């Protein structure tokens, strides 16, 4: 067990910086998720921690040891790959035992350790099988067992669930979280799927274009995004962004689930504590529990999530209202969040004389 520290970590590929000076502390025993769109440098960061990529600049510490110059096998980390990367010519037992044998562990201890892990992940009956004779989920378990058997200080996972079907993915998500609780080891998990990030991580690192946009716990990330990128990346569907009223240097945003949709016939109570926009429903997506209404308003196109599926709203005139405390305020130039409308933060920043 150990924490992982990144100090100004940079990666340059052919004069192009793909990771730009990351400073990050991954606490001991945490389940940290690196999330971001493809090409944001999250996988490269993970591979640098694993030692599969060299660090162009900066330092990586595992525990208190600088590992920049250490080969992958000596870093005491284990990695689970997206496509499992099992050794196709070896059976399940040998796949799991390979890392142990390379460390010179005796045959007897090897057998004991492998059988113990196989029991935990439910592979005891498959030890003699080749990876090609296993289902996707079973292969994933072999990959996990292979990582676990080494009892590493840090687990690294590179989109390990993206090759599984939706049902199995949900199941494995729960299993991975409980596994993390059971082992208490540091997990670093890379994904592009924000749902995976939100459900599994206790610390989420949102990345974009080689930089960290925000590091926070899942709920904080959702409720208090620090900038426009995080606001639009976390949450499904993305936050609606509209022009600010009376401030050309700002943008306002609200979550689709915080908006209220009313037929135009019902005139909303005019109030100072609401943002109001008139418009027309252009399309809707039924999700089952909720429905997404795409509304073309006078203040731009927005999406509203509502628990009604009323068809008569389609094509009709509607009014979208949002309570002002749910309205986020962003600076147009820096893309940073200033505060909320009508909230104390806003007042404070206004008093502080922003812009």
């Amino acid at each position, binding site marked *: 067990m150990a924490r992982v520290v990144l100090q100004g970590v940079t990666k340059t590929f052919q004069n192009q910086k793909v990771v730009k000076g990351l400073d990050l502390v991954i606490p001991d025993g945490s389940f940290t998720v690196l999330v971001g769109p493809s090409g944001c440098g999250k996988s490269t960061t993970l591979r640098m921690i694993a030692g599969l990529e060299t660090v162009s600049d900066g330092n990586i510490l595992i525990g208190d040891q600088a590992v920049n110059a250490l080969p992958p096998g000596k870093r005491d980390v284990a990695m689970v790959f997206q*496509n499992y990367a099992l050794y196709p010519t070896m059976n399940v037992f040998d796949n799991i035992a390979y890392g142990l044998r390379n460390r010179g562990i005796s045959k007897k201890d090897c057998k004991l350790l492998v059988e113990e892990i196989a029991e935990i992940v439910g592979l005891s009956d498959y030890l003699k099988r080749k990876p090609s004779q296993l289902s996707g989920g079973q292969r994933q378990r072999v990959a996990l067992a292979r990582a676990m058997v080494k009892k590493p200080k840090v687990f690294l996972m590179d989109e390990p669930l993206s090759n599984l079907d939706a049902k199995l993915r949900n199941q494995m998500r729960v299993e991975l979280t409980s596994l993390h609780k059971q082992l208490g080891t540091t997990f670093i998990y890379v994904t592009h799927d924000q749902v995976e990030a939100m459900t599994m991580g206790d610390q989420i690192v949102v990345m974009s274009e080689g930089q960290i946009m925000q590091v926070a716990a899942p709920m904080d990330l959702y409720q208090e995004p620090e900038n426009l990128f995080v606001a639009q990346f976390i949450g499904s569907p993305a936050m609606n962004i509209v022009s600010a009223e009376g401030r050309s240097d700002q943008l306002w945003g609200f979550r689709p689930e915080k908006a209220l949709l009313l037929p135009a016939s019902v005139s909303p109570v005019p109030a100072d504590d609401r943002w109001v926009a008139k418009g027309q429903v252009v399309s809707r997506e039924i999700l089952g529990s909720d429905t997404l209404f795409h509304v073309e308003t006078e203040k731009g196109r927005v999406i509203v999530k509502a628990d009604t599926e009323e068809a008569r709203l389609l094509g009709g005139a509607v009014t979208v209202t949002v309570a002002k405390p749910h309205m986020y305020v962003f600076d147009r130039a820096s893309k940073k969040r200033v505060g909320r409308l009508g909230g104390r933060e806003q007042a404070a920043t206004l008093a502080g004389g922003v812009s």
Partner: protein
Amino acid sequence: MKRVGAISLKTAEWIGLLVVALLFVFPFLWMASTAFKTMPEVRQFPPSLLPESWEWSNFVRAWESGPFLMYTVNSIVVAVGILVLQFLTAVPAAYAFARYRFPGRSLLFGLVLVVLMIPGQVIFLPIYVQLSGWGLVNTLWSLIIPYAASAFGIFLLRQAFMQVPDEVIEAARLDNASEWRIMWTIMVPMAKPVLVTFGLFSFIYHWNDYFWPLIMTNSDEVRTLPIGISSLHMSDGGTLWNVMMAGNMILILPILVIFFVAQRHIIKAFVYQSK
């Protein structure tokens, strides 16, 4: 109507295949048949397809007409020796070409390909002179050393090694495997069909090779089976075709056995493997 058309097309296809198969198999069967005939039956016209009586004694005569046991042992030593050396040189070379980036890689690999294109007959003289200078002519070494590294093997294995997914090698690195261990425990088993195929090509080529042993050797002690068999040709009173063919049967028997054993792997190597 349509069905009849399909059936007749199928039939035509089968007949075509059968003709081609016969074309290839017939000389071989003719050799086998001749090996069992008596000399008068060999000369008989029209020739008979199958021997009237099975003359097993032809094989005994062939075997006893020279030091065939010695030839056989020499052939095995040479073919196996070459095979082992070629594996030991081709595997690391192919691994380096497939997996490492180093200055001059393309140039060096180009050189390997050039070697692939030069026939042995073109360079046998300088090699002969060189081996003669080392005093190795007329020894088994002169038959083995020139073939210790195979350009064809390096090329074939490199292609196979390039197919191995990067993640598998990275997983092995994280499992604390050295490069050497990755090469022998991950790469080589994954390239097994290609290795078997190459091994077979190499073995057959050197087992049957007539030209090189003929030049490099001049005494029975270091000669190989093909030279021995060809000496059957030069017996007094005309060629004894039946004995000669019996000798050829002895020559190809090991190859047939190996081929039947390895057939599965050869087909695998040429058909793209899906997971």
